[in-house]
């Protein structure tokens, strides 16, 4: 019996060991990235990079592996592929807030040695940009492809109909809510205000939604840098949830079914704004890219119809406005065998041409100085300077290993007030109760006031 089993095992291993990369002597690098029908920009950039790279590096092939779907789907797919060295991609497009968890898991390769020999790193990237994918060990784990800031977009006609003076410059949260109330009253058929506030939008709800509020409250932050503790129970936290609650209880936001629709972002940019059915959107710098001539669904009139302005702090506290910044990087797996070749692909993918191609497509802000100075970067996009200047008031997420788990708890709290299942106070209390287990113990949490 044993002999039979062993024979079958041998047969199996014989079957599975046919797949060896060395048969042809060609080195292959697998690059994982995400693509959506309305978001083909990264794919275009990587295809271009593949062409350039393969021409310059005979003997190395680039295998582009797309993940179809939104960011949340991409995070899951990447985490699962990264479970084993055999399935892990060599290089991947990575959201900066996920970097530290992967550093802690030993899945990423530090790039410092390679970066030191790459002239562009010194010449083209500002110091603040270089930090984008810095690990807890102060090493650099990714080269930035994009960065961003956040604020308010509004439809000029809708605001004008509501009797609000355009250009509109709200100074406090109350100004924003007052404008939304005026739209609700005077412009029937238009959604006054929209923001991401449900679990289905994942990190977008946390960052574009909640943190844009919290970091604009007095002393508002998720993490106390000096005490090295995650914070609960602040007034700013409850106030931020109260803002969300007001939006939905007063019916100033989209219908709840839309608030829970995974395609809310597409509805805002491709449907509601072009049709003049939306007043104000709290969203990111990239939004207008959806309307440019080369986009899947261009909207030529957008520059006349759409305005953009800073998101005010709660009561107009200095510096008067708030923004959050994140971004994406190209990262290298710690499992890759051909590290130098892989790094060379990163430099190709993030060279001036490709970064320009990407930024012009997505509307993200560029991390490279030479791209920022290129006339074609700003040509079709009059908003670039505004969003770039928001860097003076922007905040970064506390990019620790635990952050993604904290973000999940924030999404739970936001969704609870969005649906009305909990009051802002109750949701803040639930957050305080669950935070310790999310960040790894009560000693990592502190209550404020």
């Amino acid at each position, binding site marked *: 019996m044993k002999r039979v089993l062993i024979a079958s095992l041998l047969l*199996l291993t014989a079957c599975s060991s046919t797949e060896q990369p060395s048969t042809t002597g060609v080195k292959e690098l697998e690059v994982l990235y995400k693509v959506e029908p309305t978001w083909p920009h990264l794919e275009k950039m990587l295809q271009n990079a593949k062409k350039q790279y393969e021409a310059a590096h005979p003997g190395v092939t680039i295998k582009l592996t797309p993940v179809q779907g939104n960011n949340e789907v991409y995070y899951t797919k990447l*985490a699962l592929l990264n479970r084993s060295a055999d399935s892990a991609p060599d290089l991947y497009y990575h959201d900066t807030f996920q970097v530290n968890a992967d550093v802690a898991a*030993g899945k990423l390769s530090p790039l410092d040695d390679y970066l030191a020999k790459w002239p562009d790193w010194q010449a083209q990237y500002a110091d603040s940009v270089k930090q984008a994918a810095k690990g807890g060990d102060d090493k650099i784990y990714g080269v930035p492809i994009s960065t961003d800031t956040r604020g308010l977009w509004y439809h000029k006609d809708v605001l004008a109909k509501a009797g609000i003076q355009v250009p509109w410059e709200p100074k406090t949260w109350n100004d924003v809510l007052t404008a939304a109330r005026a739209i609700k009253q005077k412009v029937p058929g238009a959604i006054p205000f929209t923001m991401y506030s449900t679990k289905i939008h994942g990190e977008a709800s946390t960052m574009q939604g909640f943190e844009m509020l919290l970091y604009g409250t007095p002393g508002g932050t998720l993490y106390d840098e000096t005490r090295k503790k995650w914070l609960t129970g602040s007034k700013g936290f409850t106030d931020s949830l109260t803002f969300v609650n007001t939006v939905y209880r007063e019916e100033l936001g989209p*219908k709840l*079914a839309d608030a*829970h629709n995974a395609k809310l972002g597409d509805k805002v940019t491709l449907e509601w704004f072009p049709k003049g059915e939306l007043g104000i959107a709290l969203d990111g710098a990239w939004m207008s890219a959806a309307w440019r001539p080369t986009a899947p669904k261009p909207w030529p009139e957008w520059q006349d119809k759409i305005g953009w302005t800073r998101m005010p702090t709660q009561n107009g506290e200095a510096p008067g406005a708030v923004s959050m910044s994140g971004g994406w990087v190209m990262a290298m797996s710690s499992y890759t065998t051909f590290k130098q070749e892989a790094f060379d692909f990163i430099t190709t993918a993030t060279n001036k041409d490709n970064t320009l191609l990407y930024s012009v497509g997505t509307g993200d802000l560029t991390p490279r100085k030479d791209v920022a100075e290129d006339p074609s970067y700003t040509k079709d996009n009059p908003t670039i300077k505004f969003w770039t200047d928001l860097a003076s008031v922007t905040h970064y997420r506390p990019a620790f290993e635990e952050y993604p788990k904290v973000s999940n708890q924030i999404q739970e709290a936001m969704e609870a007030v969005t*649906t009305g299942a909990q009051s802002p106070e109750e949701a803040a209390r639930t957050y305080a109760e669950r935070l310790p287990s999310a960040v790894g113990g009560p000693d990592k949490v502190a209550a404020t006031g």
Partner: protein
Amino acid sequence: MRRWLLPLGPALVLLGLFMVGPILWSVYIAFTNETLTGSASVDSQFIGTANFVRMFGDENFLNSFLLTFVFVIGSAVIGQNTLGLIIALLQRGRSRTTRGVVNGVVIGAWVMPEVVAALCWFSFLSEDGTLNTVLGLEQEWLYTAPMLAVVLANVWRGTAFSMLVYSAALSEVPRDLTEAAAVDGAGARQRLVHVTLPLIRRSILANLMLITLQTLASFGLIYTLTGGGPGNASQTTPLYMYEQAFKYFEIGYGSAIALVLLVIGALFSLVYLRLIRVEE
């Protein structure tokens, strides 16, 4: 003995590798704090029953558990089971054409892949969907009545199975028994309750067991139709397990939930098997 092992060997090895192995692994990690990434993924600790203690204090889990119960009772035990029996009963003695058409329609829903069935229901129930267009309403069904939507969708999709089981069982009921009952003056209802149902009771129990287990683990239909939402209004335990394991990356906790689900399935089967044996 060796003779049967030779052809069976490869299958046993494959089963061991791809089924028993993963099952044992998932039982093991249910007792650890394993995560998909982060420091716990390289240095996971054995934490005993902490995951299970956490689960029974976790409101969201308890909510999912209740919804799973509603889903199983509503869509399988009541919906599919009763509807399947009624259709099978009504089909007795009908013409071939009628049976062919009815069978075709009911089984059509069943052969459809889960995701396709869910998309059909999505376009039927969505705000600008068929139902609202026909009725002239602007009701957001998937938002206002998510559980009803997933229960109906699952009844629609799964009834064929029960119908087939009952058609087969009913064809085994000897006609002379029902005729004798009729001669003795039993009405249609009495014949059903006192003759037909007792004769097919074992098929009923077997069918109940099978559809309960299928429905308990149902994931794709609900995931595609409502995603478990809004909020967690239709988040049954398999969806909650998926969220914890693959969205929040807590694979240890997710496996613990899976294990509990497995135990519940096993308990249901035990009850049904017990009932069948009592019958015998």
